[in-house]
């Protein structure tokens, strides 16, 4: 196999030093994609489209016109981002009615940066699930153990990065869909503050919860990708006050508030991994119990289903049979919620956001495990941990939905490996709008021993 590199940063340095070319990187990625076909990570991948972009990058480099550190680097894209050179299916037989030939804003930004838009990745149908086991293209498999799920809904992107096919990929996150597969596959994932990254051209699941975000092999790689996500976009009103990415260095201690309580249970193995990470870092930490989580979870679920139902109403009437039975049931549940119930959910959301920010107070970050269990096996529909029994679907979003309901920036980092060899991740949540500070603080923590592998 052609030489590969461990990160986007390494690929970028190798290109800058003339050790490789964009075409060589593209060929290596195409070869790796073929080698790892059993993961079912990609649903659209055209070598000609890839190589054409790579050749253009090499020509720019020869002419000293490199567009950015990402110029020539292959980046995979979840199949709910509109892309001008690939169809966008949301991995559903009820195909989206959005126009073809259009790039999402994040895709357009990456193209301007010279990135090679590599291919479209498998996802949970319409991003409406956290397992990647419901897709019209079939299930996605975890590179660490093919019998286990990748988590979702950006599971193909997680698998592609974890297997080393590409070193950066795009996901979207409504209740953890960037963070869940990142944690389950042992990579890094970032959900920006709500409204800092343009959603334009990313098929919505729930527009007031959705955030597009990068998935990558290192924190440095996330830092390379984030500038092309963050900032104002005239096509997305939610970004009206969004600031562009500004590089940030953190000095001094990082003070952590670790969240626990009913509804935040986790397996002993995951709890132990977090405790070990805290010990390694020897940081200032306070454990706090969050109250009333079932009510807040209900608010997240009510907003999710009602907004999804509104978005899908027309297509569902035209092509109901194209949706999976579970997605149909979700959409019908959303349709049956009353306007008053949804407004009550919005009131709860406002209360939860205030509550969570009060708990953050003068501390630097909030922490949780990213998942309560390592990646479950395909076919395991139930999980038990901390005295509770929940569906695998709910277990995947167990810790992630609070970040969406409150709109906070969130980052997952692989910190350990289970006795079965499956990755365990830890999640950090920062103050809204301070995405760069969150990233910088976690870089500090990683240098102090956050990772135990």
């Amino acid at each position, binding site marked *: 196999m052609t030489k590969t590199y461990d990160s986007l940063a390494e690929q970028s340095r190798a290109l800058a030093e003339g050790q490789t070319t964009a075409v060589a990187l593209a060929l290596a990625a195409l070869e790796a994609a073929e080698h790892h076909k059993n993961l079912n990570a990609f649903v659209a991948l055209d070598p000609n489209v890839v190589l054409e972009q790579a050749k253009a990058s090499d020509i720019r480099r020869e002419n000293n016109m490199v567009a950015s550190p990402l110029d020539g680097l292959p980046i995979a894209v979840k199949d709910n981002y509109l892309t001008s050179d690939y169809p966008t299916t949301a991995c559903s037989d009820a195909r989206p009615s959005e126009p073809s030939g259009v790039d999402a804003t994040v895709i357009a930004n990456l193209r301007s940066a010279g990135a090679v838009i590599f291919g479209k990745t498998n996802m949970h149908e319409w991003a409406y699930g956290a397992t990647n086991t419901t897709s019209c293209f079939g299930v996605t498999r975890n590179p660490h153990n093919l019998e286990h799920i990748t988590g979702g809904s950006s599971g193909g992107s997680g698998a592609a990065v974890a297997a080393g096919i590409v070193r950066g990929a795009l996901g979207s996150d409504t209740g953890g869909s960037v963070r869940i597969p990142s944690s389950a596959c042992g990579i890094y994932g970032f959900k920006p*503050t*709500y*409204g800092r990254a343009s959603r334009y051209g990313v098929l919505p699941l729930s527009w*007031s919860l959705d955030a597009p975000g990068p998935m990558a092999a290192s924190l440095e790689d996330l830092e390379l990708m984030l500038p092309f996500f963050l900032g104002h976009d005239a096509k997305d009103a*939610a970004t009206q*006050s969004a600031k562009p990415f500004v590089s940030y260095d953190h000095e001094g201690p990082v003070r952590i508030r670790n969240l626990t309580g009913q509804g935040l249970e986790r397996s002993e193995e995951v709890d132990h991994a977090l405790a070990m990470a805290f010990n390694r870092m020897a940081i200032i930490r306070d454990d706090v119990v969050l109250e*009333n989580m*079932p*009510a*807040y*979870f*209900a*608010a997240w*679920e*009510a907003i999710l*289903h009602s907004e999804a139902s509104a978005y899908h109403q027309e297509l*569902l*009437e*035209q*092509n*109901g*049979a194209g*949706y999976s*039975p*579970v997605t*149909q*049931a*979700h959409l*019908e*549940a959303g349709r*049956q*919620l009353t306007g008053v*119930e949804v*407004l*009550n*959910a*919005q*009131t*709860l*959301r*406002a*209360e939860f*956001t*205030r509550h969570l*920010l009060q708990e953050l107070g003068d501390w630097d970050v909030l922490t949780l495990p990213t998942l309560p269990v390592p990646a479950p096996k395909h076919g395991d529909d139930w999980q038990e941990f901390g005295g509770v029994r929940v569906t695998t679907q709910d277990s995947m979003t167990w810790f992630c939905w609070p970040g969406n309901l*409150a*709109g*906070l920036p969130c980052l997952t980092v692989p910190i350990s490996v289970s006795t079965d060899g499956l990755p365990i991740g830890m999640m950090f949540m920062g*103050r*809204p*709008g301070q995405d760069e500070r969150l990233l910088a603080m976690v870089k500090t923590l990683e240098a102090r021993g956050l990772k135990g592998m």
Partner: protein
Amino acid sequence: MKDCTLSDDQKKRIQATLKRIREGLEKRQKPVFSEPAHSFAPEAYDDKNV
């Protein structure tokens, strides 16, 4: 819905989802002056940004 009839399993899922949501929403405190967010901007709730 057009083109598809809900199965018993789907109906059970829908009822279970609605029950969970409604039970959760009932647990909310009912503050007199709390208004739902019209448009969601998390920074609005952050005292440090005021």
